[in-house]
């Protein structure tokens, strides 16, 4: 279960090119005790509140930069809140495209270190390792440094590592988009399995069909704020499509395919 209460998340970004800055101006700033102008604050999430219960699969949609990934990181406890709070009932695993672990180490070592970092014992790690390698399907590449991996391979291995442990909350951030068809099927099975066991799943995806298929709730973000959130998955997806300049299709599809139990998933 996840409760998000009036959450604000602010990134501080260094070295924006707003002010190139010379040594002299930097010194002057020090004397005047001003903040560096090159630190820009990015207000990525501006006051979000919602509740997700056990057994929920929540889809998160929105344009690039609308705060989807930030929201997931905040739920995972990896980003501190500037204001407000996130409450969860257990440990969360975040599966993201950018969740590269240690890229100069081999896949094998990443598997072991990832398991140990998640708090598994040495023995549990040794037992889980062959399964992870097999699930990832990277084959002989497992003995090469992860920087030699293709994007898809890296994503597969990271997904395999993070899903090796059962979590109360699973956060999937486009982690499946780079995989091939076979891996997408495998990972969907794994998500369903984890969801049945663990409770709450959050899914960020730009392929709306994926969300329509797996989620029973959806949150639509825009510029760090919630535009719409609710149980009416096809309805919200359609509104989002229309706002993005497309045509609505999920409402009709849901009405014809799943009628009369239209909102089940």
């Amino acid at each position, binding site marked *: 279960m996840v409760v998000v209460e009036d959450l604000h998340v602010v990134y501080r970004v260094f070295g924006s090119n707003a002010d190139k800055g010379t040594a002299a101006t930097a010194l002057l700033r020090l004397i005047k005790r001003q903040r560096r102008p090159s630190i820009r604050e990015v207000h990525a999430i501006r006051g979000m509140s*919602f509740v997700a219960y056990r057994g929920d699969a929540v889809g998160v949609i929105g344009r690039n930069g609308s705060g989807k990934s930030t929201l997931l990181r905040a739920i995972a406890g990896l980003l501190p809140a500037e204001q407000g709070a996130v*409450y969860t*009932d257990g440990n969360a695993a975040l599966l993201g495209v950018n969740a590269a672990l240690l890229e100069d180490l081999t896949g094998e070592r990443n598997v072991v270190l990832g398991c140990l970092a998640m708090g598994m014992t040495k023995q549990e790690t040794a037992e889980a390792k062959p399964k992870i390698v097999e699930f990832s399907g990277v084959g002989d590449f497992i003995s090469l440094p992860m920087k030699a991996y293709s994007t898809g391979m890296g994503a597969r291995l990271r997904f395999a590592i993070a899903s090796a442990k059962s979590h109360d909350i699973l956060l999937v951030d486009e982690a499946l988009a780079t995989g091939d068809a076979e891996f997408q099927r495998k990972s969907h099975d794994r998500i369903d399995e984890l969801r049945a066991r663990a409770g709450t799943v959050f899914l960020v995806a730009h392929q709306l069909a994926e969300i329509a298929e797996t989620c029973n709730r959806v949150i639509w973000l825009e510029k760090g704020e919630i535009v719409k959130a609710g149980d009416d998955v096809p309805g919200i997806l359609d509104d989002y499509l229309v706002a993005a300049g497309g045509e609505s299709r999920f409402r009709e599809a849901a009405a014809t395919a799943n009628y009369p139990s239209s909102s089940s998933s």
Partner: protein
Amino acid sequence: MTKQGRVSAPGRLSGPVAGGDSAATATAEPENALLPDEPLRDLALRHGLKQTAVVPPLRSYVVDIWQRRHFISGFATARNIAMYTEARLGQLWQVLTPLLNAGVYYLIFGLLLGTNRGVPDYVSFLVTGVFVFNFTQRAFITCSTVIRDTLPLIRALPFPRACLPLGYVLIELQQLILSFAVLFVIVVVAGEPVTPYWLLIFPVLVLQSIFNVGCGFILARWGASIDDVSQLLPFIVRTWMYTSGVLFSLQTLTLTFTGKLHDHPALAYLLQINPAAVYITLIRYALLAEYRDALPGAKPYNHARCVLYRAFPGNTKYQSFSAYCHPSTLPSIPSLWVWGTGWALLVVVLGFLFFWRAEARYGRG
């Protein structure tokens, strides 16, 4: 996706065709059906939920770190192996780096400048100092960037972040052990005997490691928020090296009539109880028999011999006569053990608390 014939939703402006980023935000009121009636905080507490991204209780934090001990050692070993994989000579650099380090200092300070006045067996003296100080130096510099270096890992998995500075100090300790293998060879070749005193090296290195971990915590937190720290640090550390008796003997500078510290006994004392000097002196005391025998107070006081040493420190004939002087202005070896233990415990407790207080903030930036 077709752009013609789209239907505007009721009550909403449709944006322009390309890059219309105002379309969605033009909605008047957000419709959020995922909000219950009761206050969220009460709901969360009623279900026994815990707030994320807050500083964990100290006790459970320590337990968590202990549970991750295999992660810490695995992380250090893996990083160590990966460090030289791109180099053609590979792991040989683990040994070559300390050797070249010692070689450079010997060339400049031993041969060109001749600072070896007043120190018997200068090569062993110098190499020991360089290797021991290098441990602290490397630990400081790497720990100051540890949070930035491992940001992908921090943002991917939840674990106590204190594991990372701990891992980095462990990396340097593993390097140091290799350096010491080289050091033992150099020292034996230089004619030092292998004695039971060598066993004292282990407790000193334990103390020094604890000290480094404590400082590593502090620097890791500073370096995480202020990049200037890692820029400034090399200069601070180098100054520290020159004042810690790595390249020359603080005892000589204090005792001899021409020594710069002769007239400033208080300053001389302070320099010798600074942590780096303490650990270096203790290691030299353990490892180098000639150094040990030449320490002031090692032999019964003999005025004539002491004066000879103080007047002519450069004369190789008298350079071990420092043993006949009074150790009054110099901290004794037992007091150095007390200082070394005190520094280590003080810094590690303060550093750990300092790092822990900011635990929730390390993902940002």
